[in-house]
Each structure stands twice: as structure tokens, then as C-alpha cells.
């Protein structure tokens, strides 16, 4: 080590050491000459002999410097200086190259930081590696409900390999596994709550909560920031209602976590006491949510006592799936061992819950998953889009690299004489390559540094775009890992675009090059073909991105021109939940009615209506409703959810005047009005899709139908109207079958949350303030949720598609620009090299048009080759994004044709400028030049 510092010290005084070495050798020569003179040699001869004896002075100097031990460093510094000088001499090239690299590296870094945050980050708890998530899956095409899974509250997801996958279990399964397993040191249960109305320090807020079993915090090894965590004594029927708050919520409402302790809160009209505050970094176990209140699991009996299947039923029903579970592996137990042990136990338990042979054949199979990163809801949503984005930005970087490689190649040819001179002077080939690589690395570092700046901006931009207004629990940032990735990427790109041109440049036979005249033709066919390969591959990448952009733009325009079935203009909507604030039947109905009247009376508001769900983007209610006399269909959806089949009946409870206000036409029958209240004959309005599915067509008005809602007895209703099709739940696909019921008649579930619609004259958002004020006057405990215009809400629903369309278009244009610059560079270079030839042709009578065509022909050949390769490639690659498209097939001919046309036009434009320049060559000058 000390020798390293000594060398470093010498490095600092390098100049003086050089002088000393020269003096030392001079002394040696003098001494030798003096000695020879003493022996009788003539002074002149003595000096010459001494000099001869010493040998090659330069070599001695070089060897001695090598002994100083920092030659490599010195050479590197020299290379750096030389490289910087070369880059400064070509500012246009340098800026262009660094800029395209910066965009490429920056985009990659930004996307990677998202992957880092959303896909790779671990839970901020102690020893996350030993956490596991319990799941089950059911292979085969059978619906999960054709099995022991009679009813669910939670998510079941489709997986291409495993069939249906879910993390919800019956509560008895949790108890069974917790009591008798030997592989987990702890097993805890949790489930997200619906949005809760939380009133703290006098202010109402609708926010997310998490129901947790008593050992949730202990199991996760989370210590509270203040107070205590919940324990098993809190999680039982009849325990005093207590909650743990999130750090953010405690600060927001009480200013300080410590001050939150012992404070009363009202959650959905039930009084709770805050006993603790979670640590700042903790967001629960699902990165897609961040609950503000952690309630004991059994507190849901207080908050939603009437939820299916009855108050205590959910804790003993062995076929009702709703509890999520996580655990911690005992030390020394592997995931596979635990999977085997728990799997056996679960199999035995679940076999005991079957009631018939179909269920016995179709049992859920147990799955144990790594839980270090918590639940994978976020990863499931974002991994595919992020990988696609990463693919796109990777392609852009590739295009930028190819471009710089191409420019360097062209320059390498221009520097052939320089290289030949260096090599013939005895420079080692490796030494020259090293110097060229230093140059490209310097360029890469410039690009990388600018790229990181660009990434900072890009991360902010993407966060706004991806989140669509919500805040991310996991915030992407430029942490060490991301920065390291950016640095590695920079070095790799530097080597990538630098190596081939460096190898090419130094593979010269000095003699012919040195003999060549300056403007002479090139004999290096290899360079040409490498350059051409690069241009063609750029075209292929460009084409890929252009086709992608075309597909997403078409998707977006399809979405925008989508018929929603109602008039979305000038519509303001918001949701409130009076039940959570303590309103009950039948008072709640008049409360909502009064509110609707007051809203409609606002000056400038043309009308108001209400429904028990927004129409778009918030799922749908549904249960079987069939013509009278038909039996209840089996396995029809029942409850609230999203993505029911088109034929399944969706049910929407609406207020009087809903159809005229929303402008959903009624071809037959009448609208709901004040007559349709509780106690009056039960009525319904059906839409055309429902009629088609259930009656095959015709006018249904006057017919009777039966509603099978699980929590009530079957009810008979009369159809009083037929409505045109309109959207409910999804924006896309065929129109669903809908039965509209009067909200007033409350045919089934108790009146709960209500969505209000206001038709305004002019911009609807100007009524946001008055609306909040009216609701506050009606009941200050009820917060207004989801206040937005209908147009905005639909835009929000299309946010992923919009983002993809915009990003992909931007990426495609960027890559097109880069590729055009590359093509322009290569063509200009080719023209410059052929100046002599073109001059001769023109002197011999070639027309300007002929010359332009000659140059453009080359460009066309490259383009055609590029297209020939890229059309099948992009046809295949577009299948990767099929799931993100709407109303357009992956191999859409319009998108393809547009991409081909744009690419060809851009290529010809890039080629035309140099071609025109070629046609303006003055034959005399060109020929004389040689």
C-alpha cells in the first residue's frame, strides 16, 4: 500500500522526475565518455561510443518510466486528454452522440428505477426473506365456484400456468394451519377493508384500512413508532375496539404520533381508540395499498355486521373464502419443505369441506410463495407494462448505440491515415484500440451523466403518468442500485458502440493506406457491410417502435370514440356513504333524496340523479334476475365485482329521473319516478342486452321477472321500461346485460354508498365547491369521494392505454430521429467518399437527377432490406402487447402500412439531403482534387 502512495507522490511530481531521469542518464553518458577519454579515445569518438553503449535512449527512458509503475495510469490520462480533444474538435458529433445516449440511458434508468421500486423492493420489516404468502390454485378451465369455494370476498386471478390463483382462505383453514403446523414460526391473517369513513379530531376522511389478526405486527416483527401494536387480546369478539394508525395518518390528524395515543376515532360510525402508531416506513403487506388504520380482524363484526354470510358465519363457514394469510418460516426450514408440510395439512382439511363429487374432483391445491416483497398485486398489474417499456427503451438505447457506432465507423475511415501512421510508427494495435475505446467511454460517460439528469426528470414524469393522480406506496428513486445499473449500462454501451469501430479502424494494412491519395476510394468492403448492417438493424428497431406506436394510437382513438351509451358531457359525479356516518333505513333514503333535490336546485345545474354505483371504473353489482317461472341459474355472479360475463345480469339501483338525466334513451315503457318508492309495486327497467340474453328480443314491458339476491327471498318485479344499451363497469367489450331497479324500493341489500350525477351548463368542475358545501351542510361527518367530471373519470380509466400510446409514440419518434441522423450521416459520408467518382460521371454527362437517384438507390436498398426483415419481426413482436390493445389486432394492417410509409419517407428524406449535395458537385473541382 505504501508503495502505491509513493508512486502517487511521484505521479504528482512527474515532470521533475522526467527531468531527473534525463539528468541521470546524461551524467552516465558523460561519465562513460570521460572514462573512455582517460583510456585514450578522442573526445568526439568517446561520446559517440558512450551513446552507442547506452543503446536506444527512448527505449531506456520508456523502460525506466515503466519501473515507476504508473505507465497504465499515465497512458490513460494521456488517452483521456487526447479523447477529450478529439471530442471537442467535433462538437456537432459529440453533442448529437451524447444527447442520443443521454436519452437512451436516461429512459432506461427511469424505467429501471420503477422496476426496482415496484417489482423488486422488499417489505421494510426485519428479516423479510423468511416471510411467505399462502395461496391456492385450481387448474383446469372450471370456474372456482364449481368447487368447495362456494363464495368469496377477495380476488381470484387467472394465471396462464396455474389456472385460477388466489390468496383468500376460509377462516377455519387459517385456524387449523396456525394451530398445527411445525414449519412456520408464526402465521397471521389479514384482509383489506373497504374504504372506511374515519372521523378523527373532528374531521371526516374516507381512507383505506386493514383488518389484521392479533399476531400480525409481531409476525412481521414491526415495532410501533408510538404506543403499542395490536395483540391477540384485541382480536376477539367483544374486545374493546382499538386501532393502530399509520404514521402518516397520525401525523396528518394529530400532528405527532405520540399525541395520537388514546385518542378517540369514529370509524364507520363505531367509536375506536388509537393505541399505537406504525413506524413511518411501514405500509402493510401489500405495496399496492397503504392502509391508514389497522383494525383487529374481529372488528369487522362491528363495522359490517350484515355482510355475507352473516355475522359470525364468516368465521365458521368452511366454504367462504375471504382471509389472506402470511407466515414466517422457522429457521432452517426451506420454502419447499414448508410447502410440502402445509400442503399436506391443507389437502386433508379441504377434503373435509366437500359436499359432492364435482367438488371432490376439483379441489384447490395449496401454494406457498416467497413473501419478502409482500403481496404481488402491484407486481401483477405493473410487471407486464414495465417489461414492455423496458423493452422499448432498451431498443432506443440499441438504436442510439448503433448510430454512434456508425458515426464512429465513418470517422474511423476518415482517420485511416492517422491509424496507419500510428501503426507504422510502431504503436501496438492494442494500444491504439485502448485509446479509441477511451474515447468512446468518455463519450458514454458524458451521455451517462446527462442521462442520469434526464432520468431524474423522467422518473417524476412517469410517476405522474403511471399513477394517474394516486400516490405510490413505493416511490421510485435513484438509489445506489439504480445508479449502479446506470453506470454499468454506460460502460457497456461505451464498449458496445466503441469496440467494433475500434477493431475496424486498427485493422488497416498501413502501406496501401499511406500510398492512397486522400480522396481515393475505399477498398474496405468490411466497413461498408458493417455500417450497412447497423443501418438495417436501426430500421428494424424503428419499425418495431413505429408499429407499436401505431397500435397504441389506434387503441386510444378507438377508446376515445367509444360509445358509452349515455351523454358524458358536462357531467359531474361524486360518491358519498351516509351509512358509514350512521344513517340507517329508512331515513337514509330521504337523506339521499333531499340531497339530490338540493343539488338539482343549484343555479346553472340542469339536473341531478343518483345511482348506487358509478357507471364506469368501479365494478358492478350483480345477481341473477330472470323471467318469471325460470329457475335460479347456478354459479351466476352474486355481489359486487368487476369483469362479470356479458350475459350475467348486472344490477344498478337508480333514483327517479336517472335515464333522462343521463340521456339513456328508453325505446319502450317509462322512466322511474316518485311513484316507485318503498311499498309500491316492485318495478324494473331492463336494457336491450338483457332482453336479448333472457327473452331473445321483443318488447319486454309488462312482463314479470324474478330477482334472486342471496340476502333476501326471491322477489317478483314488473318490467316497466326498456333502455338502450349503456356501459356499466367496463368501458370495452360488448354491452352488458343490465337490470335497473329503483333505489327507493331497496329490493335487496341495504342502501349504502350513493353516486350522484350533476348535469351542468358549462364546465362541471365549477360546481365542486358548492357540492362540497351542500354535502357538508347536510352532514359534516360525510366526506365527498371521487369528485370529478365523467369525462375525466373515463380518461382515468384509459390512463394505461393513454400512457402507452403517448410513450410509445414519443419513443418511436425519438428512434426515428436517431435513425434518420444515422442514415444521413452514413449517406453523406458515402457521398463524400465518392466525390471523385461522381465528378467524373458528371463530367461525362450524367444528369443531376441520375446522381440523386444513384445515391437514393442505396438508401432505398437499405430501407427495403430493413423492411423485409422488420415486417415479420414486428408482426411477431406485436403479439407481446396484444393484451394492452383495444379494438385493433396485433398485426393491424393500417398500423403496419403507416409504419412502413413513415419509415420509407423518413429514410428518403434523410437520404435526399446528401443526394442533392452530391448532384451539386462541381465536376471540375471534384476531379482536380484527386
Amino acid at each position, binding site marked *: 500500500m*505504501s*508503495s502505491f502512495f*509513493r*508512486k502517487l507522490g511521484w505521479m504528482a511530481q512527474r515532470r521533475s522526475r522526467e527531468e*531527473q*531521469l534525463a*539528468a*541521470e*542518464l546524461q*551524467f*552516465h553518458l*558523460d*561519465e*562513460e565518455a*570521460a*572514462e573512455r577519454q582517460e583510456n585514450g579515445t578522442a573526445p568526439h569518438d568517446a561520446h559517440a561510443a558512450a551513446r552507442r*553503449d*547506452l*543503446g*536506444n535512449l527512448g*527505449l*531506456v527512458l520508456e*523502460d*525506466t518510466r*515503466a*519501473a*515507476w*509503475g504508473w505507465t497504465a495510469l499515465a497512458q490513460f490520462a494521456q488517452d483521456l486528454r487526447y479523447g477529450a480533444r478529439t471530442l471537442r474538435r467535433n462538437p456537432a458529433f459529440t453533442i448529437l452522440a451524447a444527447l442520443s445516449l443521454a436519452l437512451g440511458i436516461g429512459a432506461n434508468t427511469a424505467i429501471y428505477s420503477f422496476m426496482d421500486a415496484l417489482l423488486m423492493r422488499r417489505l421494510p420489516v426485519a428479516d423479510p426473506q423468511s416471510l411467505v404468502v399462502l395461496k391456492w390454485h385450481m387448474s383446469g378451465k372450471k370456474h372456482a365456484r364449481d368447487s368447495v369455494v362456494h363464495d368469496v370476498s377477495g380476488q381470484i386471478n387467472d394465471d396462464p400456468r396455474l389456472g385460477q390463483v388466489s390468496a383468500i382462505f376460509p377462516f377455519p383453514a387459517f385456524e387449523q394451519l396456525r394451530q398445527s403446523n411445525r414449519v412456520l414460526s408464526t402465521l397471521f391473517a389479514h384482509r383489506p377493508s373497504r374504504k372506511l369513513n374515519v372521523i378523527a379530531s373532528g374531521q371526516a376522511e374516507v381512507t383505506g384500512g386493514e383488518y389484521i389478526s392479533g399476531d400480525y405486527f409481531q409476525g412481521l416483527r414491526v415495532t410501533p413508532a408510538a404506543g403499542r401494536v395490536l395483540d391477540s387480546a384485541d382480536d376477539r369478539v367483544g374486545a374493546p375496539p382499538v386501532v393502530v394508525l399509520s404514521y402518516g395518518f397520525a401525523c396528518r390528524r394529530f400532528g405527532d404520533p405520540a399525541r395520537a395515543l388514546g385518542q378517540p376515532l369514529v370509524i364507520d360510525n363505531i367509536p375506536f381508540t388509537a393505541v399505537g402508531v406504525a413506524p413511518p416506513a411501514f405500509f402493510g403487506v401489500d405495496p399496492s395499498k397503504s392502509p391508514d388504520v389497522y383494525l383487529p380482524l374481529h372488528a369487522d363484526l362491528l363495522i359490517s355486521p350484515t355482510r355475507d354470510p352473516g355475522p359470525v358465519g364468516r368465521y365458521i363457514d368452511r366454504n367462504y373464502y375471504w382471509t389472506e394469510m402470511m407466515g414466517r418460516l422457522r429457521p432452517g426450514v426451506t420454502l419447499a419443505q414448508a410447502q410440502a408440510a402445509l400442503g399436506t395439512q391443507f389437502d386433508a382439511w379441504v377434503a373435509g369441506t366437500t359436499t359432492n363429487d364435482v367438488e371432490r374432483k376439483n379441489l384447490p391445491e395449496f401454494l406457498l410463495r416467497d413473501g419478502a416483497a409482500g403481496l404481488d398485486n402491484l407486481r401483477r398489474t405493473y410487471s407486464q407494462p414495465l417489461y414492455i417499456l423496458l423493452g422499448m427503451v432498451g431498443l432506443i438505447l440499441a438504436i442510439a448505440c448503433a448510430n454512434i457506432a456508425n458515426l464512429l465507423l465513418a470517422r474511423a475511415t476518415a482517420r485511416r491515415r492517422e491509424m496507419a501512421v500510428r501503426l507504422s510508427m510502431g504503436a501496438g494495435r492494442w494500444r491504439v484500440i485502448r485509446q479509441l475505446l477511451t474515447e468512446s467511454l468518455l463519450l458514454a460517460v458524458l451521455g451517462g451523466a446527462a442521462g442520469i439528469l434526464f432520468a431524474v426528470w423522467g422518473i417524476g414524469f412517469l410517476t405522474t403518468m403511471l399513477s394517474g393522480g394516486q400516490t405510490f406506496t413505493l416511490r421510485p428513486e435513484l438509489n445506489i442500485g439504480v445508479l449502479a445499473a446506470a453506470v454499468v449500462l454506460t460502460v457497456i454501451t461505451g464498449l458496445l458502440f466503441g469496440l467494433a469501430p475500434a477493431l475496424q479502424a486498427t485493422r488497416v494494412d498501413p502501406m496501401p493506406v499511406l500510398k492512397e491519395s486522400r480522396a481515393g476510394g475505399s477498398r474496405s468492403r468490411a466497413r461498408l457491410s458493417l455500417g450497412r448492417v447497423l443501418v438495417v438493424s436501426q430500421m428494424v428497431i424503428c419499425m418495431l417502435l413505429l408499429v407499436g406506436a401505431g397500435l397504441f394510437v389506434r387503441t386510444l382513438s378507438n377508446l376515445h370514440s367509444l360509445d358509452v351509451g349515455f351523454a358524458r358531457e358536462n357531467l359531474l359525479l361524486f360518491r358519498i356513504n351516509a351509512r358509514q356516518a350512521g344513517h340507517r333505513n329508512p331515513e337514509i333514503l330521504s337523506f339521499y333524496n333531499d340531497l339530490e333535490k338540493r343539488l338539482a336546485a343549484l343555479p346553472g345545474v340542469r339536473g341531478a340523479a343518483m345511482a348506487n354505483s358509478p357507471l364506469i371504473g368501479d365494478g358492478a353489482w350483480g345477481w341473477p334476475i330472470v323471467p318469471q317461472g325460470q329457475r335460479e341459474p347456478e354459479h351466476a355472479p352474486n355481489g359486487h365485482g368487476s369483469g362479470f360475463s356479458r350475459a350475467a345480469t348486472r344490477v344498478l339501483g337508480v333514483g327517479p329521473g336517472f335515464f333522462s338525466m343521463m340521456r339513456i334513451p328508453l325505446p319502450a315503457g317509462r322512466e322511474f319516478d316518485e311513484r316507485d318508492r318503498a311499498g309500491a309495486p316492485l318495478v324494473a327497467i331492463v336494457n336491450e342486452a338483457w332482453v336479448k340474453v333472457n327473452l331473445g328480443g321483443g318488447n319486454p314491458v309488462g312482463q314479470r321477472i324474478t330477482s334472486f339476491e342471496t340476502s333476501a327471498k326471491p322477489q317478483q318485479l314488473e318490467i316497466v321500461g326498456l333502455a338502450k344499451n349503456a356501459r356499466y363497469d367496463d368501458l370495452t367489450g360488448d354491452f352488458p346485460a343490465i337490470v335497473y331497479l329503483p333505489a327507493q324500493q331497496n329490493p335487496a341489500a341495504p342502501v349504502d354508498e350513493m353516486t350522484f350525477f350533476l348535469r351542468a351548463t358549462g364546465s362541471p368542475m365549477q360546481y365542486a365547491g358548492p357540492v362540497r358545501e351542500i354535502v357538508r351542510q347536510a352532514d359534516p361527518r360525510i366526506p365527498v369521494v371521487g369528485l370529478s367530471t365523467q369525462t375525466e373519470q373515463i380518461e382515468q380509466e384509459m390512463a394505461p392505454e393513454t400512457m402507452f400510446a403517448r410513450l410509445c409514440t414519443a419513443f418511436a419518434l425519438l428512434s426515428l430521429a436517431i435513425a434518420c441522423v444515422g442514415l444521413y450521416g452514413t449517406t453523406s459520408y458515402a457521398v463524400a467518399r465518392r466525390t471523385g467518382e461522381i465528378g467524373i460521371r458528371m463530367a461525362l454527362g450524367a444528369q443531376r437527377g441520375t446522381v440523386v437517384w444513384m445515391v437514393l438507390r442505396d438508401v432505398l436498398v437499405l430501407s427495403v432490406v430493413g423492411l423485409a426483415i422488420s415486417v415479420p419481426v414486428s408482426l411477431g413482436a406485436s403479439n407481446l402487447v396484444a393484451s394492452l390493445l383495444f379494438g385493433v389486432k396485433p398485426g393491424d394492417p393500417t398500423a403496419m402500412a403507416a409504419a412502413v410509409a413513415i419509415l420509407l419517407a423518413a429514410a428518403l428524406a434523410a437520404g435526399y439531403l446528401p443526394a442533392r449535395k452530391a448532384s451539386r458537385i462541381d465536376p471540375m473541382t471534384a476531379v482536380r482534387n484527386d
Partner: protein
Amino acid sequence: MKQPARVELLQGTLDVLILRTLMGAPKHGHAIAKHIQHTSQDLLQVETGSLYPALHRLEAKAWVAASWELSDKGKRARYYRLTPAGRKQLAAEQSKWEMFSRAMGLILSPVDQEG
């Protein structure tokens, strides 16, 4: 033109010869070369091309230290002297060389040794 009577230096021997030469008073490069030549009775000739790199290498390893001083003739010359580390190194190298030359001698001329 090399004189046939001289032998080429073996790889790695120059360092130990320099260190040994510096056992006495500090010397400059030229004097070191001459000393080796004379002491070996002109059998060994040190190439200038390898002497200076070797000296600087030894200096980098801190086995010798250098300073500018006036020579006998009153000229400024770079004088090298042995450092304690160099002395230790020399002792180690010397015993190694003695063992090596004894072994070589035993194998190449066993009669001499017996006699």
C-alpha cells in the same frame, strides 16, 4: 559486438547484484555498473538499458533510496544507497543464491565437490 569471454546476466540476478554492490558506500549508476564489471573480473557486463530500469524498480520497492549528491569530480550525480528493507532483502536473496549455486555445482561437477 559481445565479447565471447563475457556471460549474459541471468534473469533476476541484476537486482541482487545491485543490492550487493550497494552494501558498501552509496554509488551512482555508472559506478555500480563498473563495480559489477570489475568485481566479476570483467565476466559480467551490465547493460545500461537494463541498469536504470532496475535501479528505479528497486527504488519503487524501497530497497534502495536515491539522492542527488556531488561526485568525486564535483558533478551532480544520483547516488543510490541500501535501505534497511533492502538489506533484509539482500540477505534473503543471498542465501537463496548460495544454495542455488551450491546445488548447481553439486550437479554439474560432482567430482570437484568430492575432491
